[in-house]
């Protein structure tokens, strides 16, 4: 019997073995006859059903294309009423973004006004995003984790036995891994000064870890990144984020004086809590990307 079979397979095998209770010489012929009868029955049933089925399928296809075209046309009709692309919008609809642009540097202290917006004015929104990532990583972990008593899946058994050590990939990974990690760290640490931030930098760092794992296999990466590491890193980063943001709201967000100074704009240690929050978000994104890859590859870290 194959390893990794499902309940359904068991049911099928059981149903096939049902008509042969005694191990008589007739049993095999009996079984064959039974299978043939089932096949004939299925064929008769399907030929009867196929015609109606095919017609309904055709109708469904035509209807779905029509529905999609209708939705496209309706939305294109709406597009014609939109303000013209690339022109200035009506100032009355732009009050919020004008405020973010004009007062962001004084109030948040980050020269990257988008970072200012997502990590200062709308920091709870970004906390929710990080929680969405964490929740989906937990759900994937629940769905794909190899349970203790379940037999190893065939694909992963092949993977762990005959992991190909590709010298070209390993050489490339050895050169690229530190550079990618450094670049990701640069993006995270400069998120409040220029383009970048926790999400993009975390994604770069996560891809560096994935490259390393592809080249060297799970045995090499397991010592420094296990499921325990994932839990510790993401949970502490999320807790730090929530606590620090709650703290800043208690000590005065939204224009009230806070004793965390915004610092000199343009220097690394500025912009109050934006840099630590960027680091927390970067850690969450990095470990979640790596966790996704590991879970989809092997079902474990």
């Amino acid at each position, binding site marked *: 019997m194959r390893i990794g079979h499902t309940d*359904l397979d068991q049911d099928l095998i059981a149903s096939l073995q049902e008509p042969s209770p005694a191990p008589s010489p007739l049993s095999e012929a009996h079984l064959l006859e039974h299978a043939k009868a089932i096949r004939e029955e299925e064929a008769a049933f399907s030929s009867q059903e196929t015609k109606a089925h095919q017609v309904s399928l055709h109708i469904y296809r035509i209807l779905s294309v029509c529905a999609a075209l209708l939705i*496209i046309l309706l939305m294109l009709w709406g597009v014609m009423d939109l303000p013209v*692309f690339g022109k200035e919008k009506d100032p009355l609809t732009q009050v919020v973004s004008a405020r973010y*642009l004009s007062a962001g540097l004084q109030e948040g202290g980050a020269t990257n*006004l988008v970072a200012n*917006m*997502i990590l200062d004015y709308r920091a709870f929104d970004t906390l929710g*995003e990080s929680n969405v990532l964490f929740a989906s990583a937990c759900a994937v972990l629940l769905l794909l984790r190899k349970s203790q008593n379940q037999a190893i*899946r065939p694909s992963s058994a092949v993977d762990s036995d005959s992991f190909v050590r590709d010298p070209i990939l390993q050489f490339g990974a050895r050169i690229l891994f530190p550079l990618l990690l450094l670049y990701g760290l640069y993006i995270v640490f400069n998120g409040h000064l220029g383009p970048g931030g926790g999400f993009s930098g975390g994604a770069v760092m996560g891809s560096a870890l994935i490259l390393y794992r592809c080249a060297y296999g799970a045995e090499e990466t397991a010592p420094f990144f296990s499921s325990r590491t994932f839990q510790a890193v993401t949970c502490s980063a999320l807790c730090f984020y929530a606590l620090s943001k709650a703290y800043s709201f208690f000590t005065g967000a939204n224009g009230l004086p806070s004793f965390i100074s915004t610092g*000199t704009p343009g220097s690394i240690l500025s912009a109050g809590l934006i840099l630590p929050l960027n680091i927390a978000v970067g850690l969450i994104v990095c470990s979640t990307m790596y966790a996704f890859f590991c879970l989809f590859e092997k079902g474990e870290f």
Partner: protein
Amino acid sequence: MDLHLLLENRLAAAAIILFGIGLTTLLLNRNLIKKIIGFSFMDSAIFLFLTSEGYIGGRTAPIQLPDGSMPASAFVDPIPAGLVLTGIVVSVSVTALMLSLTVRLYQRYHTLDLDEIAQLVRKEGEK
């Protein structure tokens, strides 16, 4: 239909056509992986639409100089950038969830065809 108006908002129009392609893929394909691809198409269409709404011609990315000397009228709208960021994160999470559910379905039913899976589920229910 005034095509001139559509040409002026060509990025939004392209986003909507992309959205329609994704929706049609979602409706017409029975393969679960292709359905997920259609879903990602729709995600990308919405990102394209949002970024095109935030763009204002001749302006730069909202990155202020350290002395704050650039006027607010020099920057594009920052809000769609934040919305797209949120959208990308959520779409990555949702895609991962959908793919892992597909993996579980394939492990149980050994097929990716939604109709076959529905038939097998019905057979299981009859037993």
